């Protein structure tokens, strides 16, 4: 769906739902996921519909993923980091554990 317009200078490795990906070190998590062809990052809490990054500027809260164990982080607002673990979400966040 998305095509890179330039070759990244530096790459980092992130783990998305157990799969290792080499991504642009300057990307946001959302851009990295979209670049890897992952348009659906979660299912909506109320209707279980597929959801993915939309506004890419922190407004819509559509891009929520679990990053390094913390649930409901906005993928578009978090830069990638080497070794980062990301998981897609299904259902509502739990209130036990995984907090900040």
């Amino acid at each position: 769906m998305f095509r890179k317009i330039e070759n990244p200078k530096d790459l980092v490795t992130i783990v998305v739902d157990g799969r290792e990906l080499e991504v642009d070190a300057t990307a946001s998590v959302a851009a990295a996921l979209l670049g890897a062809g992952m348009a659906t990052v979660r299912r909506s809490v109320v209707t279980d519909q597929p959801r993915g990054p939309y506004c890419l500027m922190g407004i819509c809260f559509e891009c929520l993923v679990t990053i390094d164990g913390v649930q409901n982080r906005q993928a578009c607002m978090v830069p990638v980091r080497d070794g980062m673990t990301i998981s897609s979400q299904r259902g509502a966040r739990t209130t036990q554990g995984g907090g900040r």
Partner: protein
Amino acid sequence: MRTLPDQEIVVVGGGLVGAAVAWGLARKGLAPLVLDGEDLSHRASRANFALVWVQGKGVGAPHYARWTIAAARRWPSFAADLLETSGIDVGLRQRGGFTFALAGSEMAMWTEEVGCVAEALGEDAPDHAVLDHAETARMVPAIGRDVVGAIYSPLDGDVNSLRLFRALHVGMLNLGAAYRPHSDVTEIVPKAGGFLLTGAWGEVLAGRVVLAAGNGNTRLAPMVGLSAPTLQSKGQILVTEKCAPFFPYTSTTLRQTDEGGVMIGDSQEADTSSIATDQDISSVLASRAVRTFPQLAAVNVLRSWSGFRVKTPDGLPIYECSSTHPGACLVMCHSGVTLAPNHAELVADAIVSRDTTLAGGLFPGGRFHVPQD
């Protein structure tokens, strides 16, 4: 030529109260016209905490306790009627409500309040239980150590308030009511055959008029020989991201909506006319919530908002038909969610049958009159 054709009955105000009355009038075969204000006018109906709440209400006013209990008991069949007339499920849950105490003094105050109501009502008193920490934790294991106890009453519950608002509007239109926004009524002039209602939008002649304009009633009521004094009371609410269910009951300060978001509320400010939310108040609300349910510390707050209550000086409703201007009635209250079934059924039915005594005549606006020398 008048802007609108003459009307048999006009309801001024399309918040929860006006919409409930119009829904009820339309269900009994009238075709009320609802004149409402602007999109951005202050509406308690869009700001509230959505409780169907009985516990502790009516201290020193057993008639108000009885009126509230009657509404809570009517809610299940009312919710079914709303679904039938609007297709909208308002998400009524009456699984019981808690008032969590975070200090011994709070526990003592609330115990006394429910005790007073129970004593005044005798046999008719709604069930309640005064629980210590361990008893509360047995019902709600997620509570924090700071919770010293709670009052629990099984009749309390909540709805999805915005869906209630929508259901009343869709339902009243389906039943034959008409709705006209951007129609602030600035003047009501008694005329032969009714009342001439005017505003910047135009004018309409109404055979009868129901004032249900929330805080707007204060200005309108004297035009038809009624009075609707109010106090300023602002409430603020926080809402978190949606969470997996952890609290199946409801409470005065915290509830988890049917869709998972946690509403945390609601403050009481008497000395401000600014609608802006206040950070200091938000932090008090949030800190109480986290002491009550420590696991909320990890949860993000997404929004906060505030709204002005429709609060009379004694906090009780006003239901009254004008004796000097027959055909004009006033309906206003501080708990428009809880009392919606009473407004839609009892109050509306009385208006339909031209009964000039609303709600047994127990809530007249004249009670606030101070004799002048």
